[in-house]
């Protein structure tokens, strides 16, 4: 992870760590904090705790998002302080609805100059985000839509359950917009619970979400999504999400947390060790196997 972040994430970049509640690469966020990146534009549908940590650590100058909160808990206080009180400085924001964010990635992934959606009518959102503009259908009906511009992150970081060493990555469970964000990005880091043999990927090609052709680095980082979850591997650590509310409310507590859990640790491996085996054991679900399908051998 150190090498991937060092080589692929640069000051001033637009970075998308995607994953809708599921498979959020906290490990990458922490490494970006540790390496002291600055002036990043952080894009994500739902900034979640990981971006609160990154904003709290001072890596970001701007946020692009569609819903900024601690899901199921409440607010993200480090981000709110920056927006409401410019404390310790202002944070530029650019906001959409969920579908608007998704379509920005789709446009970026598809090399389209705009993407039409039936959102934003009679809302104040286009008044505060001038990138959202109305357009008429060129067909007879002349239906009005809005369009959003493509989002092409410099770097997308996607956590997957597994990938081969080339980066062909498979995901099951919630898919969010990781595929779209990865295809839209210039550089892609794939982080996985397990690096597996290419033959495992090739046995079930319909499960592959991200192909190696767009991947620049593959990092194996077990528990790299904690406190978010990896379907089938571990549960969301809800106690952490709840605890974060108190931690982030006070800048000093937040700094202390960053020192203890990010700066003073060399890597996510240290974090996993420090968290302790009991914690990981308590988050492990019982098995629920998918069953197999038969692709047939056509030789």
């Amino acid at each position, binding site marked *: 992870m150190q090498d991937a972040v060092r080589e692929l994430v640069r000051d001033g970049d637009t970075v998308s760590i995607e994953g809708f*509640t599921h498979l959020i690469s906290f490990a990458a966020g922490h490494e970006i904090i540790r390496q002291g990146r600055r002036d990043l534009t952080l894009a994500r549908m739902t900034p979640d705790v990981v971006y609160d940590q990154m904003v709290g650590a001072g890596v970001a100058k701007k946020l692009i998002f569609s*819903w900024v909160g601690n899901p199921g808990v409440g607010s993200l206080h480090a981000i709110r302080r920056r*927006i*409401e009180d410019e404390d310790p400085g202002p944070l530029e924001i650019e906001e959409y*609805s969920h579908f608007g964010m998704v*379509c920005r990635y789709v446009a970026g992934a598809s090399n389209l100059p705009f993407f039409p959606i039936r959102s934003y*009518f009679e809302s104040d959102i286009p008044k505060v985000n001038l990138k959202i503009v109305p357009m008429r259908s060129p067909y007879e009906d002349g239906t009005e839509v809005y369009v959003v511009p493509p989002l092409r992150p410099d770097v997308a970081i996607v956590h997957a359950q597994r990938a081969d060493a080339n980066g062909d990555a498979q995901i099951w469970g*919630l898919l969010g917009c990781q595929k779209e964000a990865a295809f839209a990005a210039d550089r892609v880091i794939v982080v996985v619970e397990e690096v597996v043999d290419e033959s495992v990927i090739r046995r079930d090609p319909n499960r592959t979400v991200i192909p190696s052709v767009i991947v620049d680095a593959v990092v194996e980082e077990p528990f790299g999504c904690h406190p978010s979850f990896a*379907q089938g591997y571990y549960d969301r650590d809800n106690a952490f999400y709840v605890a974060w509310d108190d931690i982030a409310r006070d800048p000093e507590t937040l700094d202390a947390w960053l020192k203890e859990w990010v700066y003073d640790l060399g890597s996510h491996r240290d974090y996993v060790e420090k968290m302790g085996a009991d914690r990981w054991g308590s988050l492990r679900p019982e098995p629920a196997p998918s069953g197999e399908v038969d692709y047939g051998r056509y030789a």
Partner: protein
Amino acid sequence: MSETSEAYEAYSPSEMMIAASARQLGGVRNCFVGVGLPNIVCNLAQRTVAPDLQLVYESGVFGARPERLPLSIGDPTLVTGAIAVTSMFELFAYYLQAGLIDVAFLGAAQIDRFGNINTTVIGDYAKPKVRLPGSGGAWEIAIHARQILVIMRQGQRSFVDQLHFRTSPGHSGDPAHDASRGWWGSGPTSVVTDLGTYAFDEASGEMTLVTLHPGVTLDRVRENMGWDPKVSSDLGETLPPTDEELRLIREELDPEGISTK
């Protein structure tokens, strides 16, 4: 089920809101579920008035069958055993924008008399007093679902005469304009609060008090909203939660009382 003691019958305002909302889902085929109260409402409806109700989540899950009360709309328990999991593009494009969703739920920091909703900021957008989460899927839900249920506690700060920011639109106040929009829905169709239930008047598009919850007075309603409410000519009383509804809520759906206190 046989127990009907007075203690049991002393239901909470949340339980009243849940029961009143669930009854509105009778016969509904599918429902776009939010977390918290809406989640319990849908699960209660599935066990009472809408046994075939399919639960759809904006995280990309269709036909969820959660084994525990989900902590968020992205809880892994929603995925395991679901009918389908899809990308968010497809969920928003093919299900929601295409008009496949019958009923959805919205919450709000502020709502006005026409069902316009603010979930973005309290105060000025550029320098907000409180930065709220923003739209999320709310804009799309507000217009693309055919019916919208709003569940929220009411008060002077939430039921306002003038929104600080209009995140998603409700009725325009002009029914001719509403009809010409060509949307699947047209903002909230029903509001359930801790004090009563509201519908929206067809002619004016205005929120109209339809029932008061047992023990609630019209004055108390007026004290807890920022405008003088339209009241239905045949204002009734909401039926209290039944023993069966309370039993399901307390024993099956929220045994720890997370959302129903």
